[in-house]
């Protein structure tokens, strides 16, 4: 069974600064995807970024980038130029590339961006 661990329950950052959220996972599979989802107080889960395990290049989406270390089973999210609207819960998730994949989520990191 796959597990996902987020060891930082809460993080704080000031506007315009950079913050990194950590995620580690455990699996014996080699073909999978990793995701970061954002959940603001409205509760809607919004996809931030995804990474295919077979790709060595780290995914980037505007201010969001990941550091994917497959051997270490680590998948951290870096948010550059933090904005007030980035305040939310951030969940790391794992999904097998089977076509019928369910997501296994971590417990989340609460990020607070302050002025």
């Amino acid at each position, binding site marked *: 069974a796959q597990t996902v661990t987020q060891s930082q329950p809460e993080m704080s950052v000031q506007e315009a600064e950079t913050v990194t959220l950590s995620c580690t996972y455990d699996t014996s599979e080699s073909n999978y*995807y990793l995701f970061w989802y954002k959940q603001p107080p409205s509760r809607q889960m919004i996809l931030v970024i995804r990474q295919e395990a077979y790709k060595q290049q780290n995914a980037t989406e505007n201010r969001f980038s990941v550091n994917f270390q497959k051997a270490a089973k680590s998948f951290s999210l870096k948010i550059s130029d933090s904005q007030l609207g980035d305040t939310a819960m951030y969940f790391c998730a794992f999904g097998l590339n089977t076509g019928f994949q369910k997501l296994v989520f971590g417990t989340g990191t609460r990020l607070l961006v302050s002025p």
Partner: protein
Amino acid sequence: EAGVAQSPRYKIIEKRQSVAFWCNPISGHATLYWYQQILGQGPKLLIQFQNNGVVDDSQLPKDRFSAERLKGVDSTLKIQPAKLEDSAVYLCASSAQGGETQYFGPGTRLLVL
């Protein structure tokens, strides 16, 4: 493109009562998921449909929870009878056939008193 729709957004019931949640996935998405998110935790899969067939319901408490996806489009999740520990947010998500990305609805917050 319309997103995943869910209703109701909030529901308060007393224990031992019944409740039902509705989900309409993104048009054309073959796979539909129901997740339970207890406060302070990440979502946990309850049941997964591929079209109108069940792919995974291993974590669904079948003595009280049931779900259906008639005609392979919208879906209903029912709890009967509800327990206090069922208080949670119920999230519906959908993905295209073979697609790796799941898109989530706004969720239904259930409070059981």
